[in-house]
């Protein structure tokens, strides 16, 4: 499969944006600049970025609680994302959603969902609409290894298969659900093995390798767009940080070893991609570094933007409940 330079650079750019976004979020969250939970995507960047690089702006994605990586990977606004985390009016959802509910319908980001696996049927439905309307967009949904045990995944995959829907089920297997290893809760070795129960291809991909993620997704998108139906992709990856900011009780050592974390950090998705670019003379070390520092600047600007954006005024409380508003009860 050929992958052009522009895409390769975009992949690096977006991975760096996510990485720096998350690092900054950890910093400002622990400084108390905003409250609520936030689930760092650090270590998993290649999964969403590689996958989203295979999509058009008119394709749809939906995601979950580990929610910053997906919209940023799809090209979402860093400023609006950060302002949303800060609960400000210039955020994606005018401050009403916060970290777990980022969305940008204008570029196909149908939103992150705090309830595990809950957006899987929704994304499947977007694909259903493509089929019913005879449109050629595809839909992709991100969910975790833990989420794969929800009934919603089973129902959606089966439905997508029997209806031959243009949807890609993208399982981010970071190997843990909070503190519970997927080996303890998923009865098969690989979540992608479950594809056979739905008569669809199941692809296990190195989730630290953005290009591998991209290529697997391109194949799935082609299948979907040409009416051949859904694909299940499992990106095997690892989260470097704790499950979420704000769950302080959970100490790392109790459920995974420092050694394991260190091993995975050695397979850092950004390093891997940069090495590829440099080794193949697609970009120099300096170019990579300047992409990294540009992204840092972008994130800093986003923080400024967020800090300077006002909180919603009280009369905003009742806005956005209804498309056709009704009297307040």
């Amino acid at each position, binding site marked *: 499969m050929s992958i052009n330079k522009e895409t390769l650079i975009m992949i690096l750019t977006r991975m760096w944006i996510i990485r720096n976004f998350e690092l900054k979020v950890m910093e400002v969250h622990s400084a108390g600049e905003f409250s609520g939970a936030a689930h760092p995507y650090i270590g998993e960047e290649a999964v969403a970025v590689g996958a989203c690089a295979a999509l058009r702006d008119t394709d749809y994605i939906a995601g979950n609680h580990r929610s910053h990586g997906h919209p940023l990977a799809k090209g979402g606004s860093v400023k609006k994302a950060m302002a949303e985390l800060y609960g400000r009016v210039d955020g994606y959802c005018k401050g009403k*959603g916060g970290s777990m509910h980022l969305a940008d319908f204008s570029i196909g980001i149908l939103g992150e969902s705090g309830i595990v696996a809950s957006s899987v*049927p929704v994304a*499947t*439905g977007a694909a259903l*609409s493509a089929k019913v309307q005879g449109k050629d*967009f595809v839909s992709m949904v991100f969910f975790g290894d833990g989420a794969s045990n929800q009934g919603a995944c089973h129902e959606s995959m089966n439905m997508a298969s029997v209806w031959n829907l243009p949807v890609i089920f993208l399982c981010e297997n970071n190997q843990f659900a909070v503190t519970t290893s997927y080996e303890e809760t998923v009865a098969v070795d690989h979540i992608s093995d479950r594809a056979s129960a739905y008569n669809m291809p199941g692809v296990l991909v190195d989730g630290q390798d953005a290009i591998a993620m991209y290529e697997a997704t391109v194949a799935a998108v082609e299948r979907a767009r040409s009416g051949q139906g859904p694909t299940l992709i499992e990106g095997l990856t690892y989260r470097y940080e704790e499950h979420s900011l704000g769950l302080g009780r959970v100490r790392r050592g109790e459920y995974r070893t420092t050694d394991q974390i260190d091993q995975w950090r050695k397979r850092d998705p950004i390093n891997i991609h940069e090495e590829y670019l440099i080794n193949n003379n697609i970009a120099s070390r300096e170019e990579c570094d300047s992409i990294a520092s540009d992204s840092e600047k972008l994130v800093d600007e986003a923080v400024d933007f967020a800090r300077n954006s006002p909180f919603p005024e009280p009369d905003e409380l009742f806005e956005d409940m209804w498309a*056709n508003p009704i009297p307040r*009860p």
Partner: protein
Amino acid sequence: MTQALFGEAINQATIEEMKRDERVFIMGEDIRRAVYGSTANLLAEFGEKRVLDTPLSENGFFGAAIGASLVGSRPIVETLTSFMWVAMDQLISQAAKMRYMFGGQATLPVVYRALMMYGGGAAAHHSDRSYPMFMNMPGIKIVVPSNPADMKGLLKTAVRDDDPVIVFEDGTLAGMRGEIPDGEYITPFGEANIIREGTDCTIVAIAGAVNHAISAAENLHKEGISVEVLDPRTLVPLDKETILNSVEKTGRLVVVDPAHKVCSAASEIASIVAQEGFWSLQAPIQKVASEQVHIPFTPSLEKLVYPDVTKISNAVKNTLED
């Protein structure tokens, strides 16, 4: 004016709306062969693409309808109230919450048609009347038609509305025939129907209970008691002005609700009047709703559960004696 059964009204509204707007499609279990009756002829008229039989996966396809509604379709989903429990997450976490939590970006023109099959020996698992639960959770409009004309007019409004709507179809009305005005017939949301005017007592009755309330009012009329009967028609939005005005006139209120009595729509309406219409009240508010037990199969017990003409008449008399 033509006569139509409740189910025929559903069928007419569906066909008219599917003809009017090609974004509308319908999905559900065995709807091609119209197992519950009201999807008759849809397959022949609109084909498999717009008339989808689903797997037995309510959480999956209720959610799929939501997703489809977000990107340009206007789905109608047929189901029974009792099958909504398995799909509750999609209804609550997605349909109800999505627009608000995304700051108004999501528009969800999706309609769930939920048949309430109580009253005929369907037993505990198939007799749910669950609209009060959905009233508690903001974000879904709740429609409770009590006759064929409203059924048609409200369903058409539901399909055109840009918000999620659940239409609770009262199965006890399956045999009810009623006049349906010719031509385009639309019933707006949030406008209670003053079915019968009266001066001594107001009855607010919901869905299948409306007919019982009318019968009670007719009986009481013979005894010289003048009852006003209101049908809210939609519970979200609720036309509380009409209710409060009526109680201001009559001074007395009986609320009749086929749902379980605790935290019912009747409780809600009573609490509104006890707060905003208190000074109009000349007697205790009477709540006549289903007993707080599951629906027993046996007819000897099932008939004791629901509001009926006798219970309603007694409640009116109680409030007049007080």
